């Protein structure tokens, strides 16, 4: 990181809260119903954390999200690898996958409520579905775009089909797998939070967000949005770190 841009990056972290503070706390430009004081929101956030009221919601959301996401990643990657190597399988499944991928996934939730009930399974299924679809599509593209020259190298030096698959094709597909991971991470968090806003949820950040809207607790709403933003950001950074470690060669 060069020093000339560091200052802008730090500025980007603090400028928005400062403007908020300026508009709401200092000059009260905006109605507190739309934008409460920054200090109020921070106090609210602090009490949510210290009193432990947010813990159960946080755990519930994380549980649904991580289970659905990891199931989607493992099965989606496996299916993607299979579709990538088999032209027949890929041709057969091309339409169904494109169809479901193009569908606004949140619309499927009522159906999941009918199938899986109103408890956790339906929300886990919601996190699973976009993750699975994104992983299948990206992994199979990754396999499909494997460099033919490198495959030839393996063949000419006597690699078995399994060796070519494990040592060349899977490695060459890895950068695209990570593209899928990053997209799926964001999408699955979105759908989990949205699905928590529906009936039948006792705990969950989505439910808490919706509750604070119903009860007009705008400062709680903002505090929760900050929490959700931080969660999304942390996990995105984690995937980026993993990417830098495992596919350091990508694009080189």
């Amino acid at each position, binding site marked *: 990181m060069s020093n000339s841009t560091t200052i802008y990056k730090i500025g980007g972290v603090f400028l928005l809260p400062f403007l908020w503070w300026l508009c709401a706390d200092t000059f009260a430009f905006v109605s507190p119903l739309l934008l409460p004081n920054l200090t109020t929101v921070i106090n609210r956030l602090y009490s949510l954390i210290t009193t432990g009221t947010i813990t159960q919601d946080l755990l519930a959301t994380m549980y649904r999200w991580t289970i659905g996401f990891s199931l989607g990643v493992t099965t989606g990657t496996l299916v993607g690898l299979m579709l990538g190597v088999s032209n027949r399988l890929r041709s057969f499944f091309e339409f169904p996958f494109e169809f479901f991928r193009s569908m606004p996934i949140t619309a499927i939730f009522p159906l999941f409520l009918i199938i899986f009930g109103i408890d956790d399974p339906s929300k886990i299924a919601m996190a699973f579905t976009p993750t699975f679809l994104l992983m299948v599509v990206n992994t199979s593209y990754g396999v499909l775009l494997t*460099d033919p*020259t*490198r495959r*030839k*190298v*393996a*063949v*000419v*030096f*006597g*690699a*078995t089909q399994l*060796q070519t698959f494990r*040592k*060349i094709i899977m*490695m060459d597909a890895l950068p695209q797998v990570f593209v899928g991971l990053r997209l799926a991470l964001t999408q699955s968090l979105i759908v989990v939070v949205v699905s928590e806003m529906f009936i039948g949820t006792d705990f969950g950040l989505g439910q808490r967000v919706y509750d604070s809207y119903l009860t007009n607790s705008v400062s709680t709403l903002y505090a929760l949005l900050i929490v959700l933003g931080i969660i999304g950001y942390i996990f995105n950074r984690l995937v980026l770190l993993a990417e830098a470690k495992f*596919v*350091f*060669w990508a694009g*080189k």
Partner: protein
Amino acid sequence: MISIKNLSKSFSSPAGSTHILNSVSFDIPVDSFTTIFGPNGCGKTTLVNIVAGLDRHFTGNIEGLEDTKRQVGFVFQDYRRSLLPWYSVRKNILFPLELQRLSKREQAARLEELLSAVPLKLDLDQRVYSLSGGQAQAVCILRALIIKPRILILDEPFAAIDYERTLALRKLISDIAKSLKLTVLFISHDLEEAIILGDQVIFLSKHPTQVVEVLRVDLPYPRSFEITTSLQFTDLRDRAVKIFKKCVAGTEIKI
């Protein structure tokens, strides 16, 4: 001696069948350097893919190279795409032995043996994507040599490398071929290069590809760049140019 006998190959498409190779025959003496030269798109790559066992759809015979699974060393033109960017220089060179499941100790011994025979300075722990084109192609050559190949095939290996490094790489491959007594089949897109490196130059024609002539090259070793100014070399080149005219006879030379 490796003998290519009556090699033919044709593609059939809705428009009819196209002959790529039409009864190509020539000999590759062992411990000697054979270069192949011919007009663009004459099926040179198809030919070496068949010799390397990458292409099995052909008629004819390759004698003296039976059961050579894992014993053909191949160097591709595209060195960037033929190296594995997730491996270091060392692991790239050892990749063929990794495929053969040789123990780490055997691998290390083979690498040491090879490097002691090759006058090359390389940082073995470097990432391959940070190498220069010339260094990267040298790594590809070492990777092909680590299996102690019965034949080393190079498909226009220096086509994408700048002139200065090409000269150095030519010298390297020529020296190694002599000192390790390699049997080499080298496709070249450069007439001078074909003469400098080869003990014989096989001239191929346009489609359908046939052998036009085999030019013996009796230049002394080592074959350094200076050789190109010798009378013997210029004489050979004049003959080679005449042969090349025969290769493209009857077709218009296009830009």
